[in-house]
């Protein structure tokens, strides 16, 4: 999943990016409201983490501009302003959630996960594909109760396709959602990751749910 982090504190920007990447998110970071507006318009992020007090365009103005353009990306507001009226203002401006500083990293990550699930209309943190279970909270995968060992890149691709099960995602779509601007993506990264997933999870099975739609992309079919 790809998130946009907008925070003008260099330390917070750096440390939150670290924590989100460790969690398996692809993170684009900026420290200016005007830049954030441009980036959010161009990239279909899964979640935007938005500080309120920003140079350039402030966070609330960025949020209102996004909603006016009907950009419905879930937004988590971050700020030191914790009064009730500040929270109400943020939520009424279109924020999906609000977190006041200081906060624990674990709480931030849990709220981001919840917003991602909401974006895919998935209330259950466990995605089940037959006997395969993807535990989105812990970032683990099990098959028949046995935990499977996947790399972060493999896990992200599996979760992305599982959330869109039944729908075909193109290669460029996959790359946009899974890799941030800083990532170096080879032309066959997606193909090799798909291959690795099939090998690790459905080796030797004729009816692998992870299918290639030639010329269109990849999908995971709904289990029967």
């Amino acid at each position, binding site marked *: 999943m790809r998130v946009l982090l907008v925070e*003008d*504190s260099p*330390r*917070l920007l750096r*440390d*939150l990016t*670290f*924590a989100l990447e*460790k969690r398996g998110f692809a993170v684009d970071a900026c420290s200016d409201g005007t830049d954030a507006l441009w980036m959010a318009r161009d990239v279909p992020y899964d979640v935007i983490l938005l500080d309120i*007090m*920003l*140079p*350039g365009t*402030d966070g609330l103005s960025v949020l209102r501009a996004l909603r006016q353009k009907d950009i419905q990306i879930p937004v988590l507001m971050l700020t*030191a*302003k*914790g*009064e009730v009226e*500040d929270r109400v203002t943020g939520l009424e401006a279109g924020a999906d959630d609000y977190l*006041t*500083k*200081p*906060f*624990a*990293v*674990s709480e931030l990550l849990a709220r981001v996960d919840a917003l991602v699930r909401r974006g895919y209309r998935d209330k259950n943190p466990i995605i089940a594909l037959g006997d395969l279970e993807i535990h989105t909270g812990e970032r683990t995968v099990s098959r028949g109760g046995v935990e499977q060992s996947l790399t972060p890149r493999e896990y992200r691709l599996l979760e992305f396709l599982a959330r869109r099960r039944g729908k075909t995602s193109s290669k460029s779509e996959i790359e946009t959602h899974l890799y941030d601007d800083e990532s170096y993506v080879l032309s066959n990264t997606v193909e090799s990751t798909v291959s690795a997933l099939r090998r690790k999870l459905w080796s030797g099975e004729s009816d692998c749910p992870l299918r290639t739609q030639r010329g269109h992309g990849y999908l995971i079919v709904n289990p029967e």
Partner: protein
Amino acid sequence: MMDQAAKRPKNGLGNRVTRIVVLALGVLILLGGFFVHAAIKELLVSQFDQALLTKAQTLTRFAEAGRSGINLHFTEEPLPEFQGGDDSEYYQVWFKDGSVLARSPSLELDQELPRRSQPNKHAEFRSLELPDGRAGRAVSLRLSAQDGVDNEGFIVDLTLARSSEGLNQILRKLVWGFLAGGLSLLILTLLVVRRATRSALRPVDLLAAEVAGIDAESLESRISVDSLPVDLQPIASQINGLVKRLGATFARERRFASNAAHELLTPVSELRIASDNALDWPDDPRATSGLAKEACELAEQMEHVVRSLLALSRAEAHLTPVNSEHFDLGNLLKELLDSFQAEISSRNLRFTCELPKEFPLNSDRVIVRSILSNLLLNAIEYSADATPLKLSGRIDSEMIELTIENRPDEVTREDLEHFCEAFWRKDSARSSREHTGLGLALSLAFVRLLKGELNFEIEEEAIVVTTLRLPKNH
């Protein structure tokens, strides 16, 4: 608002005015009625008495005294009113020695009229009960009669009495008339005054309703002054002024709370996130390296904010001790400017200085140094590059005055109002970590502690003029 105007409280102005007017009018009507009634009664009684006296005097002209009594000859027929029956009148005549000389036929033998008792009065009037039980009025006279036989004169007392029922009835009707008239007048007055006060006080009711509608959420609203009567306009203007100041105070308090939260909670948040990462991923050098150094820097940053806040709080409460000493302000300024020289040079500021050769000051050197340091540093750091920066000073009889002129980027007149507001910064995003927004607030608190003044003005070409005045001898 209309409902509030319609619901008039019992102790409201309108009801009070109505009560006072009706009460006053009631008292006036009562007193007036009383006196008028008394005057009319006196007049009527006087007229009655005069008629009674006239009749008594008329009777005496037709009296012929004889040894057997007085004979009254008015006509060939005896006077019918003295014969008894309905509406009888009565008379009785006494000799000087008190023996009865004559009595009217209407008077029974065992019935007596009162005799004259006040020798100094020519005619004596009194109210009495007539022998037939009716209320009456009598006049008693002393007169001289002539013996028809001997032609000798002698003194007799005459009392004539007649019914006063008619008079009393008139007087009763008069009283009822006054009461009915007075009551009607009072009721009419009540209605008229009530209506009049309601109409006259309507602007007051509307003003009261508008003022009652002002609360913490509506401090931007103002009462419309022009639509009010002239005598209420000063009140409305004052209220508008008070609400405006209250709104500004509330806004300032909200800004303070919000900015203080940002200044204090942001470094705490940075420390927490960095610590969480280090705890969750202790083996990742990106999470752990430099953590100690950053924690130290953040702690220093928070310490600076907290100390500044405490200093501000103490200065505003006049708890900061002031230790005065003699020193030369010029030397202190030179010392500060030397320390800021690098900054001045790096910004290419065209610095000029005009100070008196001797610039003595008797004040707290440490506090003055803090004030000047804040003001100079502020002027230097916020001046646009390559702009003039001027420092000048003068002394008068009581005060020293120091002026700093600089040209900052994008400062407006509205910004000047907030210069000394705690935590206020021109950059609303508060991006820079070198400033907390407490420097000028602290300077102002210190200046006031030293009984001085600090002012900011914008002159032509966007030059900000900072004027500091301090007592020469604190």
